[in-house]
């Protein structure tokens, strides 16, 4: 299998890449920091990847997306799986008062992914097969006071994916929307952890499994589907008073 991982040095991406490496896949990685990419590439080779290449890119540099993806497809030939993992968790208080920062966060967590999906869709239609999987978030299910800028960007992507899934149906391409709950990773280092938190490794296993099965919308771990259902049925006149 040939796997393209975007935002490859995030904790969940790294854990997923390791599973694919152990399966003997060829991988192409895209991320911002070259030293991290180099480390990850050697890790994946030791774990059994048949080939690892990478491109350095700041994903908010939209102008470079097309070129970088071209490189990835040249390196891998066809791409069986494209997994988009990058994101950042903004400080809500700051971004709701500062549009410039809000815009940057929405670019990182939303617009940059739409840009990538646009390119990827064209390429996957050409090859008439494959899976595009994107990590969104349970935060996109409903706008909550403590993180609605992040949530709005994520729901932008989720909505886009729903439409894209239909579009790609006749081209034998599946679209997977992975919505992790609370994940214990460097991105969430500042939060105290409780029983609802799960490890990047656990999320990665779920990602690999749902891509193999051709799932559509996946909550990771599964119990978040129940939690988010409950959150979604709270009437708005109650919900607007909640701050969680």
């Amino acid at each position, binding site marked *: 299998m040939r796997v393209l991982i975007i935002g490859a040095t995030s*904790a969940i991406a790294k854990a997923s890449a390791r599973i694919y490496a*152990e*399966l003997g896949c060829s991988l192409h990685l895209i991320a911002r920091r070259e*030293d*991290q990419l180099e*480390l*990850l590439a*050697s*890790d994946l080779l*030791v*774990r*059994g990847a048949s080939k690892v290449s990478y491109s350095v890119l700041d994903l908010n540099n939209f102008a470079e997306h097309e070129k970088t993806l071209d490189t990835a497809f040249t390196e891998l030939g066809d791409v069986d799986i494209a997994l988009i993992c990058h994101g950042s968790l903004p400080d809500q208080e700051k971004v709701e008062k500062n549009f410039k920062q809000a815009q940057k966060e929405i670019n990182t967590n939303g617009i940059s992914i739409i840009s990538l999906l646009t390119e990827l869709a064209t390429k996957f239609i050409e090859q008439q097969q494959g899976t595009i999987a994107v990590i969104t978030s349970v935060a996109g299910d409903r706008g909550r006071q403590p993180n609605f800028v992040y949530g709005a960007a994520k729901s932008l992507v989720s909505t886009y994916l729903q439409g894209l899934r239909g579009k790609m149906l006749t081209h034998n391409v599946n679209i997977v929307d992975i919505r992790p709950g609370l994940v214990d990773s*460097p991105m969430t*280092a500042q939060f*105290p*952890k409780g029983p609802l938190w799960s490890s990047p490794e656990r999320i990665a296993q779920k990602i690999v499994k749902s891509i193999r099965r051709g799932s559509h919308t996946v909550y990771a771990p599964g119990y978040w589907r129940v939690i988010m259902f409950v959150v979604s049925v709270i009437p708005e006149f109650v919900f607007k008073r909640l701050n969680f």
Partner: protein
Amino acid sequence: MEAMGWGRYPKTTAKLIQPADSQALQKFISSQKKSASCISRGSGRSYGDSALSEQLVSSRFLDNFLELDEQQKVLRCGAGVKLGDILSVCIPRGLFLPVLPGTNAVSVGGAIAADVHGKNHHLDGSFCTHVKKINLVLASGELVTCSEQENAELFRATCGGMGLTGVIVDASLSLDSISSSYIDQRSLVANNLRECFEHIEDNANSKYSVAWLDCLATDKNLGRSVLYLGEHSASKNRKTDTMYRERSGLGIPFYTPSFLLNKTTMSLFNASYFGVQKRKKSAATLDCDNYFFPLDSIPNWNRLYGSKGFLQYQFVIPSDGAFEGITSVLEKISEKGKGSFLTVLKKFGEANENLLSFPKSGYTLTLDFKNELALFPLLEELDRIVLAHDGRLYLAKDARMSEEVFKASYPNWERFMTIKNKYDPGNCFASLQSNRLGLTQ
């Protein structure tokens, strides 16, 4: 957060720092104020308080494989890589770790800091015997390399040094070639301690050798045991499908109510275990997980000893006095009615040159005890027996040894201190254990 070792005693609150890479780690160490101390933490598998401090520096994200040279049989990997991950990479290539402790969850950094040993110590030495090179971050924030050739004194202090010299970032390990990851096991029943010692001596060339012992048997049955010998199998293919095969047994969902663990239940368990083993076929072939890590099949087995946790007591006594010393220890335990499910006896080979490494030539016995007030005076009595026979306790399992006992039994502690003071004069690296043992503060 609340922090504790594998024995769940003692508990403390600590701040957890999880550097994303070695640069972040260096930045954190450089920014440390004089008053604060920290200690590195891998998988949290040391039993007592050796990985507890105000600040815990986790090696969780230092978990990359860096290079595997299959010709030279050398692996370089981050300190946070777990031994189980190394096995799943190595076994399909016909390679194996030369030393494996009783759990595959131990991190490379932890294995070096505690200089862990395995069932083959009598032939192959301890973990650090096979460590070629270590990169570690010193208290100054500087990243240095040490090995037997380069910064040798730092290397000798870091191997088995319980994290007190710096934070290990990565290490190069020598690997062994194996015919198979399956182990042909032979078991020999011994009706008393003398027989067990004889079996061990008679089979000194066996690659792996460890005995389970009924610690509550008395009089003529004292020390009745089953000796397990193992060799890498020549007949079975090596295990190649380690993917997705991580064992996840049911685990222990909650603490065993403490009152269930008493002399009667322990004796019953020990006697029936001995009875079953005695009647069992004496030869079997086991896969490497079942042979080396039987307890890993029960996640959270440390909850078996109740909510207050347990203490593991492991000591070594030189061969000359070993029979006598171990007999006294077992008698003392029976007399007090304490006991454990798992009592393990093994013969060590020669000690290495690391300053604080535990293994030295002789016999080592490991006991688990439920944590209770009455236990502490008993352990102090055991300390005296061990000291009287020129023995010592394993730092990775210790949670209560006194400074006097430590300094009397680890003769190289002063040389260790000289090196520690040279590289970490402000005691940036300190654990509850090192404070208790008078190595810091």
